[in-house]
């Protein structure tokens, strides 16, 4: 009896180690390749057999990618679009979510479902109408076109996530605040908001990452004036020479803000995702 248990544990441990090892190799190897290529000299990027450790580490790729080929522009523009988008979405979604969570009015349920349904829309389905719309308004290739377009996709997500958090919040505190003479609005600002700050941070983070990474709308709606990071990177593939080193360098710089944000706010992120996602269904 004891022996079989022991053997089963051994087998199980072996399986666990196998899964972890496979996962680590699968997930880390491409990332390692990205880091090592970003330091390789140009000819070494194309050498065969490929080198796993750069022969000599250089920073040329970073200079080419960032300074010579729009990298800094990409990062600036991505930051502008992502920050304004996040601010806008949070400013609209938080009160909207609060009222959906707290007040039952006629058809409030179907209104909420309707908001969510726009998340199911494949972006390509609205790319053409949006292109025509922004062209009519004269907003093609502007920051505001991207900010508002991303807002349309981030809002449903943000509303549903925040709605879940507000519903989780016990009503008592706001009620006692109102007994003490607060209006609905001050109860919302002074009581409900401070209590849901972590949720707000998580929501804002997801919105930020989405607009930082979005590619299709950026390609379709912008040309020269606005160039977000995901649009800059394909520009490094030129006709017959592909600047692998520069691509890797720009990518790495582009991931850094996200990694930093996630490291600092890891707690919020996982918690926000769980609650928001599971309630979202």
């Amino acid at each position, binding site marked *: 009896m004891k022996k079989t248990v022991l053997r089963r544990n051994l087998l199980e441990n072996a399986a666990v180690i196998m*899964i972890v090892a496979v996962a680590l190799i699968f997930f880390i190897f491409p990332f390692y390749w990205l880091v090592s290529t970003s330091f390789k000299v140009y000819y070494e990027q194309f050498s065969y057999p490929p080198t796993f450790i750069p022969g000599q580490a250089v920073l040329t790729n970073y200079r080419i990618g960032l300074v010579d080929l729009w990298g800094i522009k990409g990062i600036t523009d991505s930051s502008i679009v992502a920050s304004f988008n996040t601010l806008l979405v949070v400013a609209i979604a938080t009160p909207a979510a609060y009222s959906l969570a707290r007040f039952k009015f006629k058809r409030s349920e179907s209104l909420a479902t309707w908001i969510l349904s726009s998340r199911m829309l494949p972006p390509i389905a*609205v790319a053409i109408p949006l292109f025509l719309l922004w062209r009519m308004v004269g907003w093609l290739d502007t920051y505001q076109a991207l900010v508002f377009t991303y807002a349309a996709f981030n809002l449903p997500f943000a509303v549903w996530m925040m709605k879940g958090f507000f519903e989780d919040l016990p009503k008592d505190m706001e009620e006692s605040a109102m007994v003490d003479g607060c209006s609905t609005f001050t109860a919302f600002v002074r009581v409900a908001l401070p209590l849901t700050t972590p949720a707000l941070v998580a929501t804002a983070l997801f919105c930020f990452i989405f607009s930082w990474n979005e590619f299709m709308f950026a390609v379709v709606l912008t040309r020269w004036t606005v160039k977000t990071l995901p649009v800059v990177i394909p520009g490094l593939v030129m006709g017959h020479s592909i600047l692998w080193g520069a691509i890797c360098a720009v990518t790495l710089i582009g991931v850094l803000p996200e990694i930093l944000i996630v490291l600092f706010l890891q707690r919020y992120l996982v918690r926000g995702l769980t609650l928001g*996602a599971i309630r979202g269904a």
Partner: protein
Amino acid sequence: MIAIINTFIFVASTITIQFFFGLALALVLNRSFRGRSFVVAAVLLPMMIVPVATGYIWWMLYDVSYGPFNYILEAARLTTHEAPIKWLADPSLSLLGVIITDCWQYAPFMMLVLLAGLQSIPVEPYEAAQIDGAGRWQTFRHVTFPLLRSAIAVAILIRTIDAFKIFDLVYLMTYGGPGTSSEVASFYTYLNGFRFFRMGYASALSYVILLIVTLFTTIFLRFLRRAER
């Protein structure tokens, strides 16, 4: 038509692979062992990379003449330098290449949602199962699985909706090719609208895609609600 078939192949295979891989990882990472937080961080890394860059990284890895994959395969004596695997340039493999890349980027998301779901399961049902003398498999089948159902549903639903929208990777890695071997619905719409300037046709196509996704999600949600009862 080929675009629709390819989309279905893409959705079905990525979701299946990502789900089982993500579930296995989530179950493993739900245990405590040394270096666990490092593994979690490493697994989450691909999720944060700009999808565009993901396409290029994998393109580089797949490359026929200087990519490390073929080098490793040769070193392991599985292929020869004269007849390398052409990955993205081979019509029968190009879609697979995109599928593997998609799994690299989004299996971590599946893992994250499932892990979060696992961690929200209280201890009591497990204790009860142990008292009743349930085995490992029985515990998983009758305790873990039912309690994890909403997390599973959310993970699959979100990923499926997103998988139907796949555009970036195809645009960057294969441009639908070689031929039409990796053309998917969103990409086909893009080609028609923005390359061939058939805006009307493209708009019609977009509505067909929207219809399919809506139909799918509605059926899925209804199925889910029935299962809950």
